[in-house]
C-alpha cells in the first residue's frame, strides 16, 4: 500500500517542520512556502490532503483554496486551514475548507482530523 501524500503550505519553516514531526513518518510530504508554489505542487503531485496557512506570500491561502476547488482534479481534495489570523473560520468554510485549526493547535486533534479526512 502506497503512503498517503500531504501538501503542507506555510511560509514559516518551523511550522512546516512541526507538522511533519507531529504527523509522524506515516505520510509523504510536499512543502510550499508561498501560494504559487502550493498550487504548482498540488497540480503536479495530486496530494491526498492539503494543510494550508492563510497568511501566505504571493497568493493568499483562501485564494489558493478557491483555485484548488475550481480545478476539477483537485476539487474533492480535503483541505485543512491552519492559521494564526483570528476570526477566519466562516470564511474558510465558505471557501470550501474541510477542517479548520487555529494556531496554536492541539497536535493530537490535528493528527485525528488528518486521519479521519484521509479515511473518508
Amino acid at each position, binding site marked *: 500500500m502506497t503512503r498517503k501524500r500531504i501538501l503542507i503550505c506555510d*511560509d514559516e519553516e*518551523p511550522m512546516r517542520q512541526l507538522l511533519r514531526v507531529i504527523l509522524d513518518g506515516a505520510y509523504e510530504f510536499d512543502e510550499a512556502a508561498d501560494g504559487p508554489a502550493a498550487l504548482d505542487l498540488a497540480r503536479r503531485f495530486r496530494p491526498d490532503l492539503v494543510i494550508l496557512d492563510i*497568511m501566505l506570500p*504571493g497568493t493568499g*491561502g483562501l485564494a489558493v483554496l478557491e483555485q484548488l476547488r475550481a480545478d476539477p482534479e483537485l476539487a474533492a481534495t480535503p483541505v485543512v486551514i491552519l492559521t*494564526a*489570523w483570528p476570526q477566519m473560520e466562516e470564511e474558510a468554510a465558505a471557501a470550501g475548507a474541510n477542517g479548520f485549526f487555529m*494556531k*496554536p493547535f492541539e497536535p493530537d486533534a490535528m493528527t485525528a482530523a488528518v486521519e479521519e479526512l484521509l479515511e473518508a
Partner: protein
Amino acid sequence: MSSSWTLGRRVLAASATLALLIAIGFAILFLATSSLQDATSRERRSKDVTVATLALEKNVLDLDAGVRGFVVSGKPRLLAPWNRAGRELPTRIRVLQRLVRDDPAETRRVRGIVALVRAYQSDYAEPTIALARTFPAVVRTPLVASEGERRVDAIRKRFDALVSVETRRAAASAASARHQTRRAIAVALVGFGASTFLILLFGVYLARAVARPVREVAGGATRLAAGDLSARMTGSGPGEVGALMAAFNTMATSLEQNRAELESQYERLRRSDQLKSELVSMVAHEFRTPLTSILGFTNVMRKRTLSEEQRAQYLAIVEEQARRLSALIDDFLDVQRIEDGRLELKHELVDVGKLLREEARSFEVQTAQHSLELDLPDEALPVYGDSSRLLQVLGNLISNAIKYSPEGGEVQLVGARRDDTVYVGVRDHGVGIPVELQDRIFTKFFRGDANARGIAGTGLGLALARDIVEAHGGRMGFSSVLNRGSTFWVELPTADRAEPAQ
C-alpha cells in the same frame, strides 16, 4: 436702471412714473373737456343771440304791421299789435343787449339796430299815427307807405347781418366742439391704452424680477431640505432678490462644505477603526505564530521518545521562536519608549560595515531563495552610536527586502562613505510600494497592501528604524517602483564628524 438700484427703489420709481403718466393723461383729458364746454357754451350763446334777435325783429315787424293796418283802415282796433309790440320792445332790447354785452362789435351792432328802431318809432311811426288820427287821407299815400317800408327794410337788413354772424359763429363753435370731443376721446383712448400697457409691463417686470427668482429660491430650498446640497441659483436678480439668491448660494455652499467635512471626518474615523481592528488581528497573528512552534515542539518533546540530536534541534527552534516573541515585545515597548522620549542609546564607536557583514551572514542562512550581495569598501565605516539598535535597523531593512520580494532574487547591500556621512543602501527587486501609499510608509502600524499580499508583520519595523536613525542624528529614506523593487537607505554622521562620547 442701474443694477445697483435696490428692488424697493425700482418699484417706487416705476410706480411714480406710472402715476405721473396717468396724471398727465387726466390733465389733458380735463383740458379737452373744459375746452369742449367752452365751445358748447359759445354755441348756446350764439343760438340765444339769434333767438333774441329774431324775437326783436318780430317785434319790429309787429310795430310796422300795426302802423300800416291803422293807416290803411283807420280803425284804432288795428293798432293793437303796435301797442303790444311797443310795450314788449324795451324788454326784447334789454335781453339782446345783455346777451351781447361781452362782445363790443355786437354791442355796437345792436346799438345801431336799437337806434334805427327808435328812429323808426319817433321819426316815422308816431308822427304817422298821429296824422292818421286827425288827417287819415294825408298819410294814406304811397310816399308814406314806402318811407315805412324803406325804414323797416333797413332794420331787417341789420337783423339779417346780426343773425348771419351769429349763425356762422354757432357753426364754428359746433365744429370746434366736435373737434374737441374727438380729441378728448383720442387722448383718453391713448392715455388708457398707454397706462394699461405700462401697468402690464410693470406687472411682467415684477413677475420676472421678483416672483420667478423667489419661486426658484423656494424650489432650491426644497431641494436643500430634501438633502440635495448641490442646489444652486444660476440666474441673477435685481437688488434684494439678487442678494437673496447670492445668500442662498453661500448658504448651500457652506452646508455642502460642512457635510463634506463631516463625511471625510467620518471616513477617517472609520478607517482608523478598521486599522485598529486589523492591528489587533495582526498583533494576535504575530504572537501566535512563534507560540505555535514553541507549544508544538514542547508537546512533541514531552510525549515522544526522541534522539539527543532531535531534542537539540527542537530546543533550538523553541529558543529561537521564544526570542522572536521577546523581540516582538521589545518592539512594542520600543514604540512606547520612543513615543515617551525614553529611548536610551549607547554612544560607542561602531563600524557599520562590520554590522552589515554580520547581518548579511545571519540572513543568508535563513533564506534559500534570495542571494545577498555585499558591496563594501576596505576601510571601516565608523559612526558613534548603539550597535544593537543599528543592527536592529539593518536587520529590519534586510528582512523587509526579503519579505517583499517573495519570488526570491538578489538583495544588494551597499555600504559607503560619502563626505561626512556613512551611507547604507538595501535594494531589492520585489513588489515595490504603490505611489499612493509611499508617504505613509513610516507610519506606525501602517502596512500598505502587505495584508492583501499575505506578508506578515506588525507595521512597526520601519517606523522604529527611522526613529532610531534619527536619534543617531541620521536620515532615512527610500525610492520604490511598483513591481520593480525598492531601495531603502540610511545616512549616519561619520564618527570623526559626530560628537565623541559625552
